[in-house]
């Protein structure tokens, strides 16, 4: 008996899409990855609209260049690589146009979806503020450190997966994560001392 498309693994789905051009397989993959990718790109770029655009571009690239995926790689790392590269390009473009604003608080407030709705109002406000501070701190650290810290500590990717996504050596990945954490710790020291 043949499995339904939703039961297939990511790699099986992309293979189905590559071989038979099954659009349903592509749609399932989009459903699976749209949220994690949006979260990753949002933490990396810093605003929701930009993150949505980057993720849409990622999905379009994946659609148009499906044949560039090789079966020996994990689909998740492949799609994260595309998203990371596009996010970096977006940051570069913004820097060129000098549109980067570190303190763009209002937009952020609107774009946040707080999942923990059972929390008390005080706790909610507190956690919201804390997450805002952390997000600002993330923006302040170097791009190269931010990327790996987000992949490791926010997206929960393994070191090997991060190596695949970034194309860096494992030692470089570890040192960058360490340095990124040190920088974050310095920036967030006031919160932890309270």
């Amino acid at each position: 008996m043949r499995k339904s498309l939703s039961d297939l693994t990511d790699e099986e789905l992309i293979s189905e899409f590559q071989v038979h051009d099954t659009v349903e397989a592509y749609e399932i993959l989009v459903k699976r990855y749209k949220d994690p990718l949006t979260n990753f790109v949002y933490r990396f770029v810093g605003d929701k609209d930009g993150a949505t655009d980057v993720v849409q571009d990622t999905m379009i690239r994946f659609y148009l260049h499906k044949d560039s995926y090789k079966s020996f790689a994990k689909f998740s790392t492949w799609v994260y690589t595309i998203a990371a590269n596009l996010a970096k390009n977006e940051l570069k473009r913004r820097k060129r146009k000098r549109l980067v604003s570190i303190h763009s608080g209002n937009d952020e407030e609107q774009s946040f979806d707080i999942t923990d709705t059972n929390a008390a109002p005080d706790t909610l406000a507190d956690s919201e503020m804390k997450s805002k501070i952390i997000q600002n701190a993330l923006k302040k650290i170097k791009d190269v450190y931010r990327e790996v810290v987000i992949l490791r500590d926010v997206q929960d990717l393994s070191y090997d997966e991060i190596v695949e996504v970034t194309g860096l050596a494992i030692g470089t990945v570890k040192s960058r994560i360490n340095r990124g954490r040190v920088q974050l710790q310095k920036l967030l020291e006031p919160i932890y001392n309270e």
Partner: protein
Amino acid sequence: MTKIYKKNEDEQFCDIINSLKQLPKVGASPDFEMNLKRRINSLEHKKKRSFFYYFTLRRSLVPTLALSAVVIITLLLTNRNSQVENQLTTVPELKADSGQSSGGNSLVKEHLIKPENIRADNVIIKKSDNHPSDHLQKQSEATAPADLSAEEQSVASSQKNNAKQLDFGQPDNDLDKSLHAKPDPDGGAGQYDNPGSNVNFGGFNFIPEYDQDTDQLRARMDSLNKLRHR
């Protein structure tokens, strides 16, 4: 040891790691998939358009294309015209050392040897003792092969002088001799066969129609010599 180090490292940054892990997850907007489908459809629609359809849609390109076509045609026509050689403006090629490069007969095979090229009208008389053409003439005489007859050498030298605006500052004895040379009764190659017939220079024939020009030149030379002797 590595695990201990790793554990210590994680403990060292446990606050940071926990804070990052507890950050609220930001999801895609509800219309994400709809927008994505719309964008993909528009891309595919563009892909399906044929080249000509795309081309005809761009009406703004028509003037540019017309202008570029006109420019290309003009350039082609201009190039074609420039390739045609203007016979009036081109200078005939002078081979000063033709005797060096090949055998003795090469001199007489040159088209420049025709008397029409050494018309008296073209001769410019200059009174000078040391003219560069003298040097050229001497050089050509020195390099001329030994088997050439006096007539051949003189005609060739006179030709070169003509091409280089002949200088009659010094009397040209060879040319003078050659013009007054009597026909050789043997009539060998490179010798003057008959006064009335073609002159044979080892394969090259003087065409009788040029005799008139030769006579004119001869008369001119005589008059010049007379003037010089006076």
